Structures are given as C-alpha cells and as structure tokens.
C-alpha cells in the first residue's frame, strides 16, 4: 500500500481550494535500468474527488505527470468543515483514498 496523500483544503469565499500531494513513483515507461531493460510504466491513471460523498472531480493522467504528483483544483460551494476525499488508481490496479476537512 502506498504512502498516504497530503491533502489541504482551504475555503475562500464560496469555494475551497484543494491541494493534493500524492506519493507515487510515476514511472514513465521510457527509462531504462542499468542492464538496459526498459522499466515498465507505473503511474496514476485516474484521480477522483468527492465533496461530502458526492463526486465532484475526476481526471485522467498519463505517465508524463511528475513523480509524487501535485494537483490543485477548486470545489465550488465547499465550506469549512466539509469533507473532501481524494482517490487515485494506478495502472497496476493499486488504489488509495484519503480524506481531509476543509479549513
């Protein structure tokens, strides 16, 4: 199981800015190891976010997203105390969900 994500959700006005730092290798599938073999791609494919249990955001990523990816988006109508849950799924089927409270 991968390391937890760091999620920070801050409300400003009628929206909340969510910043997520995920812990993932994001191997591009382009690199070669010392023996010249290609390192297989391993990256986060899908990212979804829920606001108080309701789907609000989804994204599809390719291997060109950086290692330990950063993501920022803004949820409309989220206020302090609301829950923001972020889920990612990688191309090996591994998945992780973490939740944060809007401050």
């Amino acid at each position, binding site marked *: 199981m991968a390391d937890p994500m760091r999620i920070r959700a801050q409300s400003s006005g009628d929206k909340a800015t969510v910043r997520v730092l995920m812990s993932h290798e994001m191997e591009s599938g*382009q690199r070669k190891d010392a023996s010249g073999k290609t390192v297989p791609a391993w990256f986060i494919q899908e990212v979804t*976010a829920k606001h108080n249990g309701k789907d609000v955001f989804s994204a599809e990523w390719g291997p060109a997203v*950086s290692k330990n*990816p950063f993501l920022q988006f803004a949820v*409309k109508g989220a206020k302090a105390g609301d829950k923001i849950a972020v889920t990612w799924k990688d191309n090996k089927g591994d998945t992780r969900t973490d939740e944060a409270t809007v401050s």
Partner: protein
Amino acid sequence: MQNRRETLKQSAVVAGLLATAGFPQFAYAAFNKAAFDAKSVQDSAKAAGATSIAESKDVTITGPDIAENGAVVPLGASTALPGVKHLMIMVEKNPSSLVAMFHVTDAVEANFSTRAKMGQSSDVYAVAIMNDGKALWAKKEVKVTLGGCGG
C-alpha cells in the same frame, strides 16, 4: 504579432495533437488508453475535419518560461468560459503528448494545476473541449534545461 497563417498552422498542430490523442470527433471513452499511448503529433491533415478548433484568449495555460528541471514542470490550465467539458494539458514534444485530462463538472472550477515531466523544450498547450464539441486552445513555450523523460 502573430499573423493569421501562423495561427492557422498552430491550430493544425493542436488538431493533430487531438487526433493523436484519440479525439477525432472529440469522442470520449472511459480511460482512453489510446489517448495516452499516442506517440507523436500526427500529420495535421488527419484532423482536417476538425474545423472547430481555434485559439482562444479565454483559455489560459500557466507555466514557467524556463524550467530548470524537466522532471517537475508546474503547469496549469484554466478557463472562465461556461460549458467546458474537458480541460487537457499537452506537451507537444513529449513521447506521448497528452499529460492530463481533467473533467469539468458544475461543482469544480475549470482551473487545475499539476506538475508534468518534459523531455525537452517544447510548446505546452491547454485545450478546452466544450460541450458543443468545439476545441479551444492556448499555448506557451517552456524551455527545459534538463530533460525529465529519459534517464
């Protein structure tokens, strides 16, 4: 100042990128593997049918002018236009140009940032796919001092 010819040419590049990315009619399927597997900017003629592609000042791409480390290039895409369906970030000269595709819903703002890997200096594009099938784009050149794709 950009003349019309250049603008058209760049529109064709985006059209090619979109065609490569598996959006010939801007169709969308659940994880579009073909979109991310696409390797190169195809012959722009392939996308001749995509007449509704246009540069737009309402779409914004944010990024550094010079990226010292190509492995971590902060890129953002945003638009203030209503009726946006998807927002995409593309790096033209990467092995696969599509970096990320964000699905815009009523509950989130069409403003996303992330960090991308770039193999070399290249134009980066923000492409907004509207609900009516139009594609609007904006581009920015990012110079990379040290590439982040090979190793």
